[in-house]
């Protein structure tokens, strides 16, 4: 059923078919480079344009104009010669630009002259008491179901957190006839003042008018509680209630569904496993790769585009994809670069797309109590390790996330730290009086997603490979 790559060697391999990957692959293929686009999902779009080619939501205005931009990107890709494989999970990328990809339970291997990583973002962990209970999901999860299956919440639903996605999701749920009982806004009051110096750029960016009208639309229909400083989910094997503190007053409401969101962070696993240098970003509170102006990373031949390069949003991701692809074309087929938009034009497009970002990052910088939990709140969902477990380990000598694995197995479950890594870094940094940069992150290695031993064992082996491990 699944199709393996047609060739063993490509000029450019793009990983991820979200805004950046779609734009990068189309640009590279149109310039005549042999291009392979590998994507883990069922169809193109990534998260922001999820199910763009298949959504059952036919009322276009319900998803909003920004969503349908994705259709043009897909059309442009399909008009190119790029080879596209979906349901393809890249599990290894190394410094030689050798790529291992799992497709339909079998692994294939390809080599690239240039790799463009467009693995995007994931939602920041939101480790509150009870966040592992059935009935607690991310806002992005609800949005994924809304876009790809036209599913909306119909039980008692609470949305909690902060950031533009939260309001967009709420508006979309209401437009599709779904139910929201209450929105709990966790934006810190002090952030409004901190963001003020960046307000001018924001007010003159497209975010402003869109954001304002969406918030108005939602507030007209849903009770919004702002200044929420504490949040907890509880229930016996299933979410039953959400309790919160706002303005010093505690309240508990019955709920069937709690949707959490406090922004997105780069999905670093594949990039870090390839040995790409990352630095702690103190404003966005996450790891971001060290890149030059064309998206080139510290590993020769690998560029990163889109939110994996640092959170910039969908419009910026598209431009970053084009910039990275243009840089690849300049390197591999300079004569073809003349056909593409000039780098100066792309860079000014990027500056335009990034306008207002600093304001959003400052305003929606999540509060410490929602990033750094305490007591028996679960930090590592896979291995079920609590904040207290982590702190106890620090007290008896665990120095950083990698040592902590030996103490508690944090980050060693199937998600490979995606849902606990940032929390562990910040928690240990706080406990040891160090910066997150000093504490560091999990050392990530291939396979970056679990594959079976049977799949590994079925990989073609040369005589030299066998000799390397067989005795005698």
């Amino acid at each position, binding site marked *: 059923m699944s199709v393996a790559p047609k060739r063993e060697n490509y000029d450019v391999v793009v990983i991820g078919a979200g805004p950046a990957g779609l734009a990068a692959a189309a640009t590279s293929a149109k310039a005549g480079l042999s291009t392979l686009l590998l994507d*883990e*999902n*069922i169809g193109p779009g990534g*998260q922001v344009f999820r*199910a763009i080619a*298949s959504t*059952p*939501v*036919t*009322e276009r205005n319900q998803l909003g104009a920004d969503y349908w931009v994705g259709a043009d990107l897909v059309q442009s890709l399909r008009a190119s010669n790029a080879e596209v494989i979906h*349901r393809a999970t890249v599990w290894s990328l190394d410094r030689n630009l050798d790529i291992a990809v799992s497709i339909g339970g079998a692994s294939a291997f390809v080599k690239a002259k240039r790799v463009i990583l467009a693995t995007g973002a*994931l*939602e920041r962990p939101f480790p509150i008491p009870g966040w*592992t209970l*059935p*009935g*607690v*999901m*991310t806002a*992005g*999860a*609800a949005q*994924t*179901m809304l876009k*790809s*299956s*036209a*599913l*909306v*919440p*119909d*039980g008692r639903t609470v949305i909690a957190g902060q950031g533009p996605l939260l309001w967009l999701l709420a508006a979309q749920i209401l437009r*599709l*006839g*779904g139910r929201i009982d209450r929105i709990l806004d966790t934006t810190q009051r002090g952030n409004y003042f901190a963001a003020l110096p960046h307000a001018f750029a924001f007010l003159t960016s497209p975010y402003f008018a869109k954001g304002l009208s969406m918030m108005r639309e939602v507030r007209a229909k849903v009770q919004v509680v702002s200044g929420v400083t504490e949040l907890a989910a509880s229930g016996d*094997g*299933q979410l039953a209630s959400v309790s919160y503190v706002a303005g010093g007053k505690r309240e508990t409401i019955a709920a*069937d*569904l709690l949707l959490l969101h406090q922004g997105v962070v780069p*999905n670093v696993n594949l990039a870090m496993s390839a040995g790409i240098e990352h630095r702690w970003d103190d404003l966005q509170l996450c790891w971001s790769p060290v890149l030059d102006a064309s998206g080139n990373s510290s590993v020769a031949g690998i560029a990163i585009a889109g939110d994996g390069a640092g959170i910039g949003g969908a419009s910026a991701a598209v431009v970053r994809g084009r910039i990275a692809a243009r840089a690849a074309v300049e390197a591999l087929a300079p004569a073809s670069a003349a056909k593409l938009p000039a780098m100066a034009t792309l860079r000014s497009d990027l500056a335009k797309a990034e306008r207002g970002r600093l304001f959003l990052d400052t305003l929606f910088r999540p509060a410490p109590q929602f990033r750094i939990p305490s007591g028996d709140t679960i930090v590592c*969902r*896979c*291995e*079920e390790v609590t904040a207290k477990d982590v702190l106890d380990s620090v007290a008896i000598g665990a120095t950083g996330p990698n040592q902590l694995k030996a103490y508690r197995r944090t980050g060693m*479950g*199937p*998600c490979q730290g*995606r*849902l606990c890594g940032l929390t562990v870094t910040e928690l240990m940094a706080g406990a040891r009086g160090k910066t997150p940069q000093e504490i560091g992150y999990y050392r990530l290695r291939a396979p970056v997603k*679990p594959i079976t031993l049977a799949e590994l064992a079925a990989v073609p082996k040369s005589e030299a490979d066998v000799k390397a491990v067989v005795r005698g």
Partner: protein
Amino acid sequence: MFKRSEQDKRPQVQIFVDGVAVAARQGDTVSAALLASGVDARRSTAVSGAPRLPYCMMGVCFDCLVTIDGVGNRQGCLVPVAEGMQIEIQKGKREIGK
């Protein structure tokens, strides 16, 4: 917890959840179909046996692990439903032979 919008005109696909027929729609992922069906789709974790449902729906959290057509530990949020698909709610670790 979730309901389908009336504008969804996709054809139905029949899947089986622990042997019971469930109506899904073409293009649903296994996880979306389970959450839409109203059946108790809670898996239990390998570590403590705690009940869980999908959390991220985008392939990163692994709380949607499920047995599909006899193969355990599949990420239900990344697999589209197919006619006649056999789903088993996975309790605990993946079993040997699955």
